[in-house]
């Protein structure tokens, strides 16, 4: 410290600063967040119109519909994750920081999930009721979404980083990311299906938790590498 011309913030301070910054930016552009949410609601509302208004049918497909809509909504919001920072040059400065990039990426993804994933979780009971799910199933679905949406954000961050500044990046990211979302979709809907048919569902939740832990460990590294490739 005695040399002290430049003090380096600790890793945790940088991490927190990154989250606060991203949340502040998101709060200044609430419309973006709301667009994704309304997209989620609209997609789910299309199914009774397209399939059948019969509650028995809707109850059957409800977990799948809500999960697929959540998948699409979370994928649509990926564009915001890095592209603004990429365009105004902030991202380059982030790559130059002394803190490890993967840790900062984790902070950005967490902020992104708080803004785009948590609202989906909070809104899902309303849509669950619309589709005729009962109370227990709704709570379980919220739980699966709570465990699953962070995984979506984490996996999505790799796709978002790879497609930075690429022609047609928005559509391209869906090709890259949606196949990788499939396990989360299977176990997210599987838990609710199992519970409604009176089977064990703890295994599904444990697996979603395992996916979350693995994704939180591995994807920040991949995203950091992808950012370096994209910005280079």
């Amino acid at each position, binding site marked *: 410290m005695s040399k002290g011309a430049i003090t380096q913030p600790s890793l945790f301070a940088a991490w927190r600063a990154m989250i606060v910054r991203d949340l502040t930016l998101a709060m200044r552009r609430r419309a973006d967040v709301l667009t994704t949410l309304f997209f989620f609601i609209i997609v789910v509302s299309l199914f009774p119109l397209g399939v059948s208004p019969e509650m028995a049918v809707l109850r059957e497909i409800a977990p799948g519909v809500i999960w697929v809509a959540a998948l699409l909504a979370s994928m649509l919001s990926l564009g915001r994750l890095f592209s603004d920072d990429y365009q105004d040059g902030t991202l380059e400065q982030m790559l130059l920081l002394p803190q490890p990039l993967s840790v900062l990426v984790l902070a950005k993804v967490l902020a992104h999930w708080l803004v785009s994933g948590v609202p989906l979780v909070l809104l899902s009971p309303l849509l669950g009721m619309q589709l005729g799910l009962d109370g227990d199933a709704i709570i379980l679905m919220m739980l699966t979404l709570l465990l699953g949406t962070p995984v979506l954000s984490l996996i999505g961050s*790799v796709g978002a980083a*790879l*497609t930075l500044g*690429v*022609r*047609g*990046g928005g559509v*391209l990211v869906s*090709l*890259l990311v*949606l*196949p*990788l979302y*499939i*396990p989360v979709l*299977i*176990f997210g809907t*599987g838990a609710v299906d199992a519970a409604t048919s009176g089977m064990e569902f703890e295994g599904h939740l444990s697996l979603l938790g395992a*996916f979350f832990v693995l994704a939180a460990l*591995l994807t920040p590294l*991949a995203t950091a*590498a*992808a950012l370096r*490739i*994209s910005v*280079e």
Partner: protein
Amino acid sequence: MAFKNSIAWYYFSSPKNFYPMAGRLIPWFWALSITLLVVGLYMGFFVAPTDYKQGESYRIIFIHVPAAWMSMLIYLVMAGYAIIGLAWKLRMAEMMASALAPTGAMFTFLALWTGAFWGKPTWGTYWVWDARLTSELILLFLYIGYISLQSAIDDPRRAARASALLAIVGVINLPVIYWSVTWWNTLHQGASVSPGMEPKMASDMLTAMMVMTFAFWTYTIAVVLMRVRRTVLERENQTSWVKALVGAPKEKSSEGEKQ
């Protein structure tokens, strides 16, 4: 010994040395592939006995199963080259990875297509959400994602590295996807017939299948080497050896007139 070996690898990891070697190998692999293909198809369609349950329609597995094997093998090899390319920044490995992708996608598609043709007489429908078919479909999506990412990025160097990273992410996810799809399948429907994989398969059938696999394998090598040679010329067109090879001054002026 090991030292000598490593020298040879480094020698051929240079595009300049790889290009003529690939050119010499291609005819051999073509010849091998066509021979094996003829032998394999003959054995599959004329020598192998008729299946007592499925009749003649089972014979499509001589194309279906090797294609499905190749589709998975090629993804693994592609990811292997991707890792080598990213870790050691070897241009040749990057080019090999991207040259493998279209052939892999083709075999995946072929496996799906023949699977549908096999399914019609056996299951009564062209498509069933069977675990194998579904995971093969997802594999096709992964290939398509890889190819589209690569073609969307203009800078070849960045395109190669970005898609290499995607291939690595994909290959880590592949077992998870395969396993969850299998699990999902057992939950939603009973065990389905799996294509001709009875434990005591007639030895003629197995031989024909192995011959076809090697035919596809050598075909893949031949096609990939041809594709990689073209990529080498494109990406190394600034180097003196490529200019000397294609007779640069003349080519360049005609290129200039075209543009």
